[in-house]
């Protein structure tokens, strides 16, 4: 059994109604998500949904040519596998771990059963889905109309909102894949941010040093997503997630 307060690391889980928590929480399984792990491929039927705690999962659309671009990201604000409990069974996107960490895994059918009870969980999940759709729409516009510098700022801020701490363990190559641009473009943009003292980049780790300045440099897309998320899921930014999932806590959870 997993200790109760661990669930608070995922904001969506924390907001589950009490009766749903009692039914579902004993079924949650804390798992480790290494960088680059594919949770599901486009078109594959998926059996599980994932509630990240300190990991971030990217949903990518992969073209026939093999090129891919991120359509949205899910961290401790939500759940990976929306289409599973909404009856879609499979998706057109690929889910890849962009920042290593951990997540709670749940059998998708169990969440679907709860969803079909038409209780508060239904409204909660629909609101989350709407915020995800907003993020997708804004990403489409941003990728088309804004510079790589602005896209990188948006990506860093969205990632920072969805995980505890200010350090992102990720390579520039992976960011370039997420944004659907060449790596050199990301290197240049990250270099400019580092020169301005906004971020620090070293050996696959990006530390956000000056978040307010990052928001200034970003296009309006981040604010649109943030505002809509705050409106639909006000608890995401009101209650800071301070508990980190460490190796020790994971071991303790598994031992219990």
């Amino acid at each position: 059994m997993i200790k109760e307060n661990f669930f608070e690391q995922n904001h969506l889980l924390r907001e589950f109604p009490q009766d749903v928590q009692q039914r579902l929480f004993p079924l949650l399984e804390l798992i480790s998500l290494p960088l680059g792990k594919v949770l599901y491929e486009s078109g594959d039927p998926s059996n599980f949904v994932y509630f990240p705690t300190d990991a971030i999962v990217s949903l990518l659309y992969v073209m026939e040519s093999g090129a891919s671009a991120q359509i949205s990201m899910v961290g401790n604000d939500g759940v990976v596998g929306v289409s599973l409990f909404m009856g879609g069974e499979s998706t057109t996107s690929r889910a890849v771990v962009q920042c290593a960490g951990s997540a709670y895994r749940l059998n998708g059918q169990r969440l679907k059963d709860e969803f079909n009870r038409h209780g508060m969980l239904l409204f909660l999940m629909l609101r989350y889905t709407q915020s995800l759709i907003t993020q997708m729409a804004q990403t489409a516009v941003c990728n088309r109309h804004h510079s790589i510098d602005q896209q990188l700022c948006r990506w860093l801020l969205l990632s920072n909102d969805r995980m505890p701490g200010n350090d992102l363990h990720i390579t520039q190559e992976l960011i370039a894949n997420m944004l659907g641009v060449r790596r050199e473009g990301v290197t240049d943009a990250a270099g400019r941010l580092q020169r301005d003292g906004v971020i620090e980049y070293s050996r696959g780790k990006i530390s956000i040093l000056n978040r307010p300045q990052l928001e200034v440099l970003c296009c309006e897309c981040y604010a649109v997503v943030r505002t809509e998320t705050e409106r639909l899921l006000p608890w995401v930014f009101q209650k800071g997630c301070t508990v980190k999932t460490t190796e020790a806590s994971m071991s303790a959870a598994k031992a219990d």
Partner: protein
Amino acid sequence: MFESADLTILAGLLSRYLVVLQAQQALLNSCTHFYQLEPRLARWLLMTADRAYSADLYLPLILSVQQRTYNTADLYILRSLQVAGCSVHWQAANDKRKFF
């Protein structure tokens, strides 16, 4: 009042529609990012035609051919001349789908 069974069917339909909408957004995201204007415009026309009652598209409040082109450009957030260029190209290629 809805019966419980009706509500289940309705909720199921709406949920599945949301899944379709999400898939469409994902596709739109990548398409606008990776493809040039011409295939994007073709996709837009096909998707619009799929959702229209006939193969002819009558965009609202449009009187002249030139204005119709402007309207499509606005929807797409593209420069009108580029859209017009595509339509001329298609017509020159004897494409029967003369939308403009």
